[in-house]
């Protein structure tokens, strides 16, 4: 346990410190880099609680894919963040109002909701010991056996979003020369070369 406690404080401290740096760093790229450090330490905390699969998925999905795109966008955008910052205080009342409304809604939802007996029954299924069912297998049970329809529907929602994004940005440009690799590979000397007998002094 000794080393675990040590690492918990290490990860927790770095996570909080870098989360603070995300909002206080002047350079937006530095902010994103600190955000990545926060994700990384959150993955470490997951690991300490024994949720190894979640830790690794957090790294693969958030740090390896989402944050890369985020970093891309921030690097490519030519936004004057210093000018934005000076105007930030003007919007503070509206932002505060939205925050309060969201907090109130959350409180109502959490305070007023009850767990339906069906789900409570499913949640009451005893958790098998780590020796017989590993973390990954247990998650697989929940996602692919107990809640397969919800999982599939979530996938469909993502698919619809993806198709929507493609439809919005797809342009069929006609003035572009496209490479047709199968046509290139299928070319033979017979289809590509014609032998012409040229009479001297005439040309083709």
């Amino acid at each position, binding site marked *: *346990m*000794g*080393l675990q406690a040590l690492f918990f404080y290490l990860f927790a401290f770095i996570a909080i410190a870098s989360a603070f740096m995300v909002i206080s760093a002047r350079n937006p790229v530095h902010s994103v880099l600190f955000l990545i450090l926060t994700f990384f330490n959150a993955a470490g905390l997951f690991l300490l609680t024994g949720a190894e*699969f979640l830790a690794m998925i957090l*790294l693969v999905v958030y740090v390896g894919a989402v944050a*890369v795109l985020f*970093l891309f966008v921030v*690097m490519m955008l030519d936004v004057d963040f210093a000018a934005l910052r000076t105007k930030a205080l003007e919007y503070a009342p509206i932002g505060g109002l939205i925050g309060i409304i969201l907090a109130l809604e959350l409180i109502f939802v959490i305070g007023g909701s009850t767990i339906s007996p069906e789900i409570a029954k499913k949640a009451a299924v005893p958790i098998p010991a780590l020796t017989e069912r590993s973390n*990954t297998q247990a998650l697989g049970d929940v996602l692919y056996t107990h809640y397969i329809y919800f999982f599939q529907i979530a996938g469909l929602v993502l698919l619809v979003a993806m198709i929507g994004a493609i439809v919005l940005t797809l342009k069929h440009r006609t003035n572009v020369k496209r490479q047709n690799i199968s046509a290139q590979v299928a070319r033979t000397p017979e289809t590509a070369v014609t032998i012409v007998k040229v009479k001297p002094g005439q040309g083709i």
Partner: protein
Amino acid sequence: MDQFFFTYVWPALIIVGQSLLLLVALLLFIAYILLADRKIWAAVQMRRGPNVVGPWGLFQSFADLLKFVLKEPVIPASANKGVFLLAPLVAVTLALATWAVIPLNAGWVIANINVGILYVFAISSLEVYGIIMGGWASNSKYPFLGALRSAAQMVSYEVSIGFVIVTVLLTVGSLNLSDIVMAQNTGLGTKLGLPPSLLDWNWLALFPVFIIFFISALAETNRPPFDLPEAESELVAGFMVEYGSTPYMMFMLGEYSAIVLMCALTTILFLGGWLPPVDVWFLNWVPGVIWFILKASMVFFMFGLVKAFVPRYRYDQLMRLGWKVFLPLSLFFLIVTAFVLKLTGWA
């Protein structure tokens, strides 16, 4: 005091000792892999390659190391200093960190974690940060273009590598790297009634996937013919243009460490790890780590030959290959494998 020593200090000391041992062995191996890369390249072009420092040029890598370390590191005036120096550190640290879970022999692993393959996948998906940070912090056009290219390339090929790994995991049923190797004790060969041999390993049963993995590994590690991030004919040296001396060496070290890691991963996933090729007493007597190194070196030999033989891809062709060929193919083979395993009851 005694208790403090045995709960805090002793486990930490053991881990540090093991890591140091692995690191030294790995760095030595990388030094000779670098030499081998140049020698293979030279042999294909009928040159001698490095042959001055030491017998047959055996100490060339160490001479290079000295040269890099003794040079003055130059930081461009308009560079983002902190990120500029952090980028090579990130690249090399991540590339070396992956080795913590690689089993070199039965039980020879620093961290035998349950999600070993996911850990490798996660850390190698982070390696792109070293390149992006280096390209951005240099504050110059070529490095930035190189960084953008390489980020897009690494993210694209990770997708097909992910599907290939899932296909292997389906046949094995575990995310632990040692389990993946041990599962290859029995495979296609034994199912056909043959004694345990190299026919049991995944490369035969999953041959198309093996090919996809090999090519994706080349692209993921920015090896030729996919070395577009540093395409010297267009981008000078890509994201490394502004780097020199020790930071440059660290980028190179990270790159070669990632390459050797991909060789080790190919060995573990497809070539039976430390298992001997045929179940005969004198081959079983050879230590497993020797087999592991031999197989990984053989995969690297292939990497080296590809570098020497194949001309560089054009960037749009690279993207096409990743998204329009490998992604559907690997997804298709994943589904086929799942169906075969379910219908035959081998899973």
